[in-house]
């Protein structure tokens, strides 16, 4: 790690002010479980690290404070009751140790696990050092995206993001130019060259809380993922789904994917294939992978994703 000054903020506003305008020279730190490895490998070499952990946040009902740990989210009775996908996603993330330190905000803003992104010796669109190294011949991309973007084929690692998308959550963001509320679904996009983050958050903008609106859809939600290794492993693919049934007809449905695209994404084709119809998990699964364009080493993710969609919906139907 490069030496840095450590700025402990007493509020999101102060932290945001401290970060804005400094570019890569300042970074925010919450639990540190994503940031510290990036600092240790010197991928990030900020002069200042802004510490969010001492912020006294006055969380309101139905909010997950950005600094709540994954362990706290997984254990919270109201989350388990009304937003099961979210509790499950938080509970299956990483390891007990990381769930005790990693935060909601950090999980949503974590950086891709793409091994080419994480090694400064390779060119990387996200890091702005050239073309993506994971797509060309000779690249190792077994864990990468099957819905790649044009210039980046990384896979998004967040557990929480697809779950929050499925239950229709929003994030409240703090910035000196004004706070805003953003659907988690719209929090991510294919960034311009050199933007290491996967979110649309402006420089210095911080997530203060996640807002969860209890709905029949959110109450009937789940999260499933597939890991190569059952102990600590990032998901090969993950699916979060929420469904509202009227008899055996799908009144409404939201499905989101993780681990298969550079950002967590809503699976609208899969939703449309079953919305307003009798629940047909295979139809949803087929529609889910339509348009997948796997890389040299990850075609297996296509049947895996289909199966996860089937599993999630089958679980919700029962």
């Amino acid at each position, binding site marked *: 790690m490069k*030496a*840095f000054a450590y700025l*402990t903020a007493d509020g999101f506003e102060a932290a945001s002010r401290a970060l804005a305008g400094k570019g890569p020279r300042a970074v925010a730190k919450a639990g540190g479980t994503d940031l510290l490895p990036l600092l240790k490998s010197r991928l990030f070499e900020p002069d200042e690290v802004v510490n969010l952990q001492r*912020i006294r946040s006055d969380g309101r009902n139905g909010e997950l404070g950005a600094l*709540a740990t994954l362990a706290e989210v997984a254990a919270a009775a109201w989350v388990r009751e009304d937003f099961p996908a979210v509790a499950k996603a938080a509970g299956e993330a990483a*390891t*007990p140790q*990381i769930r005790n330190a990693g935060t909601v905000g950090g999980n949503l803003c974590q950086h891709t696990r793409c091994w080419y992104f994480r090694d400064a010796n390779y060119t990387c669109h996200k890091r702005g050092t050239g073309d993506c190294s994971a797509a060309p011949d000779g690249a190792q991309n077994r864990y990468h995206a099957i819905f790649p973007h044009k210039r980046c084929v990384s896979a998004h690692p967040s557990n929480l993001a697809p779950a929050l998308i499925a239950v229709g959550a929003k994030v409240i963001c703090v910035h000196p130019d004004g706070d805003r509320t953003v659907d988690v679904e719209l929090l991510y996009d294919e960034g311009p060259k050199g933007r290491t983050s996967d979110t649309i958050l402006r420089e210095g903008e911080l997530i203060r*809380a996640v807002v969860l609106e209890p709905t029949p859809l959110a109450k009937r939600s789940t999260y499933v993922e597939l890991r190569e290794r059952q102990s600590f492993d990032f998901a090969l693919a993950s699916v979060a789904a929420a469904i509202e049934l009227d008899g055996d007809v799908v009144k409404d449905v939201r499905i989101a994917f993780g681990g298969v695209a550079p950002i967590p994404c809503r699976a609208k084709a899969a939703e449309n294939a079953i919305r307003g119809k009798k629940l047909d998990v295979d139809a949803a699964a087929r529609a889910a992978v339509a348009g997948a364009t796997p890389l040299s080493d990850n075609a297996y993710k296509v049947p895996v994703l289909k199966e996860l969609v089937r599993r999630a919906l089958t679980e919700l139907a029962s």
Partner: protein
Amino acid sequence: MEDGRIRVSRRDVLRGAGAAALVGAVARGQEPAAAEGLVRMGPDAVPVRLTLNGAARDVSVEPRVTLLDALRERLDLTGTKRICDHGACGGCTVLLDGKPVNSCLVLAVDAAGREVLTIEGLARGDALHPVQAAFVKHDAAMCGFCTPGMVMSCAALLDATKNPTEEEIRHALAGNLCRCGTYPHIFAAVREAGGAQGAGGAGGAGEGAR
């Protein structure tokens, strides 16, 4: 608790004492505030007061130094191991305010004012913690390098869960890697320690720090 709903925000679970102690620790080494609402430290070494295995310990570290490196290289507590240094192996597991964390992913300055329990603080004098005693009996340590982290994770599990099932044990240890292959004997040890604890009411982890 409000209307039966927990507001899950970080403050709710931060112990009041921790926050108060932080103010003291920061005050001792702080520089003038960089801006409103910010306390600036470093990049040079700053004094940090830790509550380590129940006793106050002062250490001077740059903000970039992890709790793990502070323990090992500055406080001579070498029981905690650095194995992967990236939070993937659990070798550096310590209890922070009673909860297992990877000390390689915690900055030492962030541990200021919080209770840190390391493997050295688990036994009370010559009396081993029930987990430790069961590890000895069941041969749950081979080369022994993952053992301190494993023991801390097990102790935390037994603090939170009396008589854990094997499934609970496996999940609680999913962040700890062993290369020699001690897992089956660890499961047996924790089952026994959990049972013994439930029956005999032996002290849990973290007691040494209280």
